[in-house]
């Protein structure tokens, strides 16, 4: 059994059922358990800017935290699409054990209309977690014409 733990932040519990022609046992179950430790944590896991008007900007913060025992090097932070999202800071940095740092994410709605999506990609030097992706979304509303 092989399970990717990328999307897990706590306990993993998986079963595999094996159907057999054993007249007595019939069905055999194998179980795999583990406790996933989130060494590099980014919160929130999803940034929702909610409803925002056209040609408006809004800022949200991501908090990166090193919950492990070794320093974590943040190699790069990038956003997509660049026409919608930008960052307050893009320089690489190091998070020592127990240290956290905020990253400001700015959304510029421009002339978009409706639901918009993007992401922030944080690349690390961790062997098993080379990058973390935080999804970003917003609902861009058309500015009401007051008629004046």
């Amino acid at each position: 059994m092989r399970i990717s733990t990328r999307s897990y932040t706590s306990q993993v519990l998986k079963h595999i059922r094996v159907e057999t022609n054993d007249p007595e046992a019939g069905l055999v179950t194998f179980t795999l358990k583990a406790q996933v430790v989130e060494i590099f944590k980014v919160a929130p896991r999803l940034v929702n800017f909610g409803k925002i008007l056209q040609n408006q900007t809004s800022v949200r913060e991501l908090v990166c935290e090193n919950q492990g025992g070794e320093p974590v090097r943040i190699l790069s932070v990038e956003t997509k699409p660049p026409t919608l999202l930008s960052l307050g800071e893009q320089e690489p940095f190091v998070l020592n054990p127990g240290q956290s740092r905020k990253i400001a994410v700015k959304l510029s709605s421009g002339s978009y209309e409706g639901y918009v999506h993007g992401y922030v990609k944080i690349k690390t030097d961790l062997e098993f977690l080379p990058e973390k992706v935080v999804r970003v979304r917003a609902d861009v509303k058309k500015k009401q014409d007051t008629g004046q």
Partner: protein
Amino acid sequence: MKRFLVSGGILAFSVLVLFPLTALCAPRAEPLDPVFDAGEIPQGKDLVHEYLLKNAGDEPLVFKARPC
């Protein structure tokens, strides 16, 4: 009467000898360590484990895994 006794004898032989034999001729699935606890694992690392399913019977064991 003699025919009845012969038929009865064959039936008794079938029940006492052949039935237990057919009951023994069957596959028997014996999982070895069916529960594996990997303990603490860093996020991102793949969890990999191999399980053993032994056929302790005397007929071929046919099986099909169904992840759930």
